[in-house]
Every structure is written in C-alpha cells, then in structure tokens.
C-alpha cells in the first residue's frame, strides 16, 4: 500500500514501474499487497494451486523487475511442483526451468505462484482440474473460462500483476474474455515452448495475460524470441512491442468474417461487438465483411489434430519415472501392463481420457488417412483462408467467445457444447497466427465480453496497435470485479 491508501496489487505493471522509478514503492511492498489479495480473495476465486514467491535476480533492471507474475501449472519451474492440474503428475517437481521462466528470472520478475487450469489444458472452464474449479471473479457461480482460467482469474481479481497462460485452441483468449482481462496467443514459433508441458505441440503457445494492452506488450517483449532448444521457434527479428502502443488506427483495414456471426452467438456479445466496430470506425478504421470459407470445419479439424498429438505427448505419463504410480493389487496380464493401466486409469480425469482415446483412435491403422491426414489438409485450407484475407487487410475482428462466462457445471456433462465455446478461437491455432482478446463491454449481469483481434503471422505489432487504440478510447479495462 502506498501513502494515498491505494493497494499496489490493483495497478498495472507499467504503473508500478513508474512508482518504483519515482522511489514511491518497492518490489517487496508490491509483493506484500499481492500476497494479501491472494489471502483475502483466493479463498473465493481459487485461482492458485500453489503460492510460493520465488525471489529472482534483484539486480536485474527491466520493465518487469520486481513485478509479480503468476504461472500456469503447465510451465516448468525448477524445483517447483508442476502438475498440469492432474493427479497423474502428483508430486512431480521439474528439474529445469522452461525458457520463459529463465527469461522472467533474468528480467528480475517475482514468480508469485502457480495457477489452476483444466487438466492438461483439456477444457474451456478450468473445471477439469484435479484441484477443483476456479471461480470467475465477476460471478463466483460462473467459470473463469479455460484452460488458463487460474491465470485469467488471478489477474482479474488483482491477485497478481501479470500472468502467463498457454493457448492451444483459445486457452488464453477465452478466459481473458470471460474474466475481462487482456490475453494474447502469440504467433506459433514466437515464444519458446521449451518447458511447456505439451498438449498439442503444433498448436501450443505460451502467452501473456494482463490487465491492459501495454502490460501485454511489455510481457511479450520479455518472453518472446528464438530458442535453439525449440526447433519450432522461429529465428526472426523481434521488435520492441512497446513501440506498437500507438493510439491511431486511421486508414487501417479491418475484416469482419461473416462466418463468425452465426446462430448460437449471444445477443449481448453481438451487440458489444457491433458497438466496438462503431468505436473503431469513428477512429478512422475501415471495415469490410470477408469470408473464411472453411470455418465450419475448424472444430472437427482441431479435435482430430489436437487429440492425436495429445495421445502421443501424454503417453510418457506411465508411472515409470515420475508422478503417480499405482501398485496393481493383483496381476491380470503382467505387472508392467497392469501398472501402466492402473496408473493412467487413476491419474487421468474423464476429459483427459476422452481426448486420449479419441486421439489414439484417429491415429490408428486404417483410420489415419481418413482422420489425421484429412484434418491436416483441411488445416492447410483454413490457413489459406486467413492468408487470402491478410493480403488485403491488416487484421480481423471477431468476438472471442460466442457467450459470456457460463455457470459452473453447466456444460460439464455436454462435451460437445463445451467444445463449441472455442469456436472463434481455434482457427487461429490451426493457422498459427497471433490473436488477442481484450474487454469490449459487459452484459446486463455485469459479465465481461471479449473482442478478438487477429493478424498475420508475426504481426503482433498490428494487433497491439489496434487493441491499444480501442482501449485508450474505451473504459472497459478500468472496471474491477467486486469481491
């Protein structure tokens, strides 16, 4: 707390840096306020699975030095329990730091704690965690979205300043939208995946979840960059994203895909989006409706590619080296096979099992061509849809999610309707392009609504510029949930 009674945890990273520079506060004061907020709020929100501040290089001087960052439970931190919120990784502690963690440590950030998630990022509600559901700070009866629901809820409830999430089909953007914060899925290859426990390797990206667009650019500056340890990270120049924080969209060409405004979209979401378009138009942006003809196939394609990769990525959780190991009571086939089966049977939750079975099925002999290979071809078509649009347009604007946050338990028995809540976000992962969600209004029930901005690969600068302009000319990001 500083002299005027303002809680430091309610501020943004860039605001806090100003205070630190002006010697008006210190890192330990910030950490203290954040820990107090966790103490008070997290009993209700349940965003964190572990709170254990890791002090890092106090000599470092960067835009995030001394600033608390919350880390999703699937990013490895040396000596810390990293479990993907799954029972199967019970007791597992990583022997190494993920590249992004190394970067945060080198930048002098304070890792404040580990945030809850859907088990192995399989979900859109953070309900499938072995630790129980995280609550939406705007309405504790509702989900925070997922799978990075813990990180989004922690940022929204001022239980951290910054957070990292991971996004495979919308897992950063959808919870950012549900919790009224800013979340970016960077271009595939922009941020190293080394140390991110893989869900679907060709879709996963780590990204920042923050209170505003400026903080998002600041955090991306720290975590982005080529990593020789990740063959899929791309070795190209990295701009200073703070320079993209320009309050001007005059003459920019923005596309609206007609396929995204379909049945099933919530009326209030639709209205909020239309109003956002009006704001940007007034600021000088040009809008035009376009077509992304293969949109209809995105969900099916995604659930084939993602589950296929997951079935192979998660095969290593077998009880041999680390994590949970079941001891079969009696031998049915052989100790080894019984141990595998019981460990995985006990360790994985229902949604994980559903996806692993699906993924194993689509890769099986005789089905591979019909499912996986075909899905890869459709994926190429989806990517081309975007390429066509970006030949003419700077970015695309869509809603982030067809609905605001739904009630806890509302969709747990209906996986298909749960999968459809990612309908606007998964194409982005299939195409490998960057996309950001930021608040664009509230429902009558005071639930946040998210606006999604998409751009071509490595055009995060364009996204930040449009998002920053919109944010500077609206007030949504300033609203806080009452806890």
């Amino acid at each position, binding site marked *: 707390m500083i002299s005027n009674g303002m809680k430091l945890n309610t501020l943004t990273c860039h605001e806090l840096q100003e205070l630190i520079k002006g010697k008006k506060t210190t890192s330990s004061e910030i950490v203290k306020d954040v820990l107090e907020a966790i103490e008070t709020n997290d009993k209700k929100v349940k965003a964190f699975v572990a709170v254990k501040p890791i002090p890092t290089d106090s000599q470092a001087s960067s835009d995030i030095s001394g600033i608390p960052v919350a880390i999703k439970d*699937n990013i490895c931190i040396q000596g810390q329990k990293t479990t993907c919120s799954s029972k199967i990784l019970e007791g597992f502690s990583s022997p190494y730091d993920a590249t992004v963690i190394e970067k945060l440590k080198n930048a002098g950030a304070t890792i404040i704690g580990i945030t809850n998630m859907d088990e192995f990022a399989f979900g859109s509600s953070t309900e499938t965690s072995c630790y129980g559901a995280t609550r939406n700070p705007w309405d504790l009866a509702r989900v925070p979205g997922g799978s990075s629901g813990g990180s989004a809820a922690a940022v929204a409830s001022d239980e951290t300043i910054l957070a990292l999430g991971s996004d495979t089909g919308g897992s950063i953007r959808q919870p950012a939208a549900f919790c009224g914060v800013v979340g970016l899925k960077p271009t595939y290859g922009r941020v190293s995946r080394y140390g991110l426990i893989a869900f679907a390797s060709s879709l996963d990206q780590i990204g920042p979840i923050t209170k505003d667009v400026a903080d998002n650019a600041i955090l991306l500056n720290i975590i982005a960059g080529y990593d020789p340890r990740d063959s899929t990270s791309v070795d190209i120049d990295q701009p200073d994203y703070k320079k993209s924080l320009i309050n001007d969209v005059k003459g920019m060409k923005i596309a609206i895909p007609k396929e995204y405004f379909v049945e099933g979209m919530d009326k209030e979401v639709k209205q909020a989006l239309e109003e956002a378009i009006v704001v940007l138009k007034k600021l000088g942006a040009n809008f035009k409706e376009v077509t992304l003809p293969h949109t209809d196939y995105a969900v099916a394609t995604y659930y084939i590619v993602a589950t*296929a990769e997951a079935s192979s990525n998660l095969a290593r959780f077998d009880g041999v*080296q680390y994590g949970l190991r079941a001891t079969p009571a009696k031998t049915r086939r052989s100790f080894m096979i019984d141990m595998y089966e019981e460990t995985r049977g006990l360790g994985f939750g229902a949604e994980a099992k559903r996806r692993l079975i699906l993924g194993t099925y689509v890769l099986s*002999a005789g089905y591979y061509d019909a499912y996986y290979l075909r899905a890869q071809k459709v994926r190429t078509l989806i990517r081309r849809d975007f390429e066509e649009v970006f030949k003419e347009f700077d970015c695309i604007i869509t809603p982030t999610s067809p609905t605001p946050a739904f009630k806890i338990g509302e969709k747990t028995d209906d996986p298909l309707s749960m999968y459809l809540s990612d309908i606007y976000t998964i194409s982005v992962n299939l195409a490998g392009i960057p996309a950001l969600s930021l608040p664009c209004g509230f429902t009558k029930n005071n639930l946040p609504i998210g606006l999604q901005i998409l751009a071509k690969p490595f055009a995060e600068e364009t996204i930040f510029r449009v998002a920053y302009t919109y944010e500077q000319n609206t007030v949504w990001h300033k609203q806080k949930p009452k806890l």
Partner: protein
Amino acid sequence: MKELETIIGLEVHLQLATETKAFCGCSTGFGASPNSHTCPVCLGFPGSLPVLNKKALAYAMKVALALNCKIQDVVKFDRKNYYYPDLPKNYQISQYDLPLSADGFVAIKTEDNVKRIRIKRVHLEEDAGKLIHEENRDASLVDFNRSGMPLLEIVSEPEMNSPQEALDYLSTLKLTLKYLEVSDCDMEKGSLRCDANISLREKGVKELGVKTEVKNMNSFKAVKAALTFEVNRQAEILAQGGKITQDTRLWDTEKEITISMRSKEEAHDYRYFPDPDLVPFIIPKEEIEIAQASLPELPQQRLERFKKEYNLSDYDSFGLVQDKELADYFEGCVKLYPQPKQICNWLIGPLSAELNHRKVSLHQLDLSPQKLVELVGSAATGVTSNLVAKEVLTNMIDTKKSASEIIKEQGLAQLSNTGDLSVFVEEVIKEHEKSVNDFLQGKESALMFLIGQVMKKSKGKANPKIAGDILRERLKKNS
C-alpha cells in the same frame, strides 16, 4: 517337391559415433555409470523438446551416399508410438514414410561374380534405454544412457539367397561403414545390430513365401548359425507339407535355435505420425554435393588402387584393405620404406598373427610405422635373419623398444662375419659326415640341412646365405 530358393533380407541398426546424442547434448560415451548421461530431453521429461544433432544427420548422409542411395529432398521425423519402460516418451523419434534416403546397393563378391544387393532405405532414429533384469531382484532396472543415441536403420531388399550371401553382405556393409568412420560397428557392444527376414519359395515362383523375422543375433557367428537354422526349420516344415506362420523369432545363442516371440496378429499398431516438435526441412542440393565429394576412399576403390599403385596381388590387397587400420598403417610404412610387398608380407603375416594372438587392434600397440620399417629393413638387409626378426617383433610389442635396441641388447645381429661362421661350419662338417658325403655326391638338399645346422648352432643368428657360401667353399676343398 521342387527345389527351394532361400530369400533373406537384413535390417541393420547402426549406432552412430557422434559425440552427443541424436536430439540432446548428452554424451554418447560407452560404459558410464547408469543414467549418468541423461538430461530432461533423453529422459523424456515433461516440457522437454528434441533438437536434431546436425552431426548425426551428416553421418547418416555419409552412409547413405556410400551405399549409393538417393537423399530425399525433405528431412522429416515421425513418432513411432508404443509403450515400453526403456522408451521414456513411450514413442520413438524415427522416420516413417519419408526415410532420409532410399534406393542404394551394396556389391558383394559371389563365387564367380559380383552381385548387387539393393538397399531399400536408410533412416535416422533414436535408440531406447536398456532394461536390466537382475536375478534375486523383484524389479527391473532401466539405464537411460543409451536413450536418444543416434541410430541408423539400413534395410536391404530381400535379395540374398543363402546365409553365406547374407554374411557376405553384412561384412561388406560393415567394412564400408568402418571406412566412413561413423561407428565402431561392434556387434558385441551392440553398436551394430542385425535382424533378418527369411522366407523360402519354390524355384521359379515369383511371389515371396511367408517370412519370419529373426532378432537377437549378436555376432557374425550368430547371424550365420541363426539363418542356417531358420532356413532348415522352414524347409523341414515345407517338406512335411506344413505352412510357415509369420512371426518374430529370437535367436537363442545357447540352445542354438530360434524361438517364436510374437505372431503377426500380436504385431503393434505404431500409430506413426509426423513429429510436430521437429519441423521438416530441406537439405540444400549443394550440401549433398559437398557430402558426396568429401566421402573418403571406400574399400573397393582402395583395393583397386593398392593393386595398381603398389603392384600387389588381389589376395595381398584384400588382406590389407579388409582392415582399414591395417591398410592405413601399410600406407604409412610404405611412405617411409618404399617396399610395398615386403611390408605387406610383414603386415598380413607376423603382425596380423600378433594382433590375433593378443586380441588387440593395431592402435592399441605402441608400434609406429617408423619402428616397424626399421625392423623390416633389418631383415631385408640381413642385419637379422627373418626368423629372429619375428622374435624381435614380439619383443618390440612387449617392451615398446625399437628393433635396433632389442637387436643390440640381446646380441641378435645376424652373423655375417666369415671368421665366426667358419667355426660353426667346421663343427657341423665334423658332426655330420653323412650329409657332407651326400652333398659331395651331388645331393643339393644336403647343403640345406647343413646350413640349418649352422643356424641351429648360432641360435638363428647366422646369415644363411653367407653360411651356405662358406660351406660350399669349404666342401669344395674336400672333393
């Protein structure tokens, strides 16, 4: 029943001798304590990612080109999914539908001709760890030091028609690989492993018969024995009107039989798919050209050159070329002492005998070409007799001293001094009257016997030529 034709195809797994593993920076050193050469990547820890070792790729390209294969434009890796405790990720990074290279051949010598055995594919993959089953222990142990080591799989077409041909293919292949210096090719250490597909068919029939796959052959001897056993086993079944069951069989070295391990029905579905952690990439044409141009001289080329350049026979040349180290050593010696035939005789004769006897490789002896040519020179110029020179060689290896030191210390210089030799000659003439008479009556072989006796008296040091001359001179007087 018509005559049967044997069809054999071999699948060779070669451990590449890179310094680090295929997809991480861990050492590939042999014999380290269990699990000491490991890291999150080769242990398959959550979040770790593979990065291709460029050296492994370069080695693989070398092999592919030396086996006359075409290198694919795109290098792509796939995951082979199966559960086993020695496989930490429960998938192996391998290459499936787009192997690194294909369509090569190995030329083997048959009785009267040269036969080309075609190579179907050569691809790069990672090795698994090693399971250790100790007696009196209620659990198995895993050593992941081998996990992630680079392996090259070399698959032949089923084109060998006898166990001997298969063995010829294997030894020709091994020699080529040795020349490339990409592996130590040690079957006992497991750096070269071999599986075989065997089937029989009636002569003249086009379709292949039902095949069996034989694994666990850990030496050339085992390969020959296992293949011979399996061919006979199948022939017997067919002779009795039975049918071959397609299965995978293990060679039992002790019982000398193959045992069925699993049938075709139990075969795995490996669910291959492209590894999303390793992005496919293109090898530039120029890089392939450079690799081709930088291939070392291969055994066949060297054999021809030795015949031409050193005027050696096919037999002599092969004797040198079949051991790359020996052939290199030969050339080192010839540079110092340009008598190829003399050196060759020493190398494939006494020196090879020493190596076999001691069960060592040349580099394990402290025997430089300088040291050896000094010895060869001593023998050739008559400083020592050939017989003594062989003993000197043994001595040199034991003591690491030079030939001249040993000859000097032990007084082994050949006796060419007429005075000293005359004493022995007089004694021999006195003691062997009968042979003297035989010689005087024109029996030339008697002289050889007498020379032998002089050699004996001199403890091998006498120069036999000079001893012969003195004997002849001396006996002339008697006639």
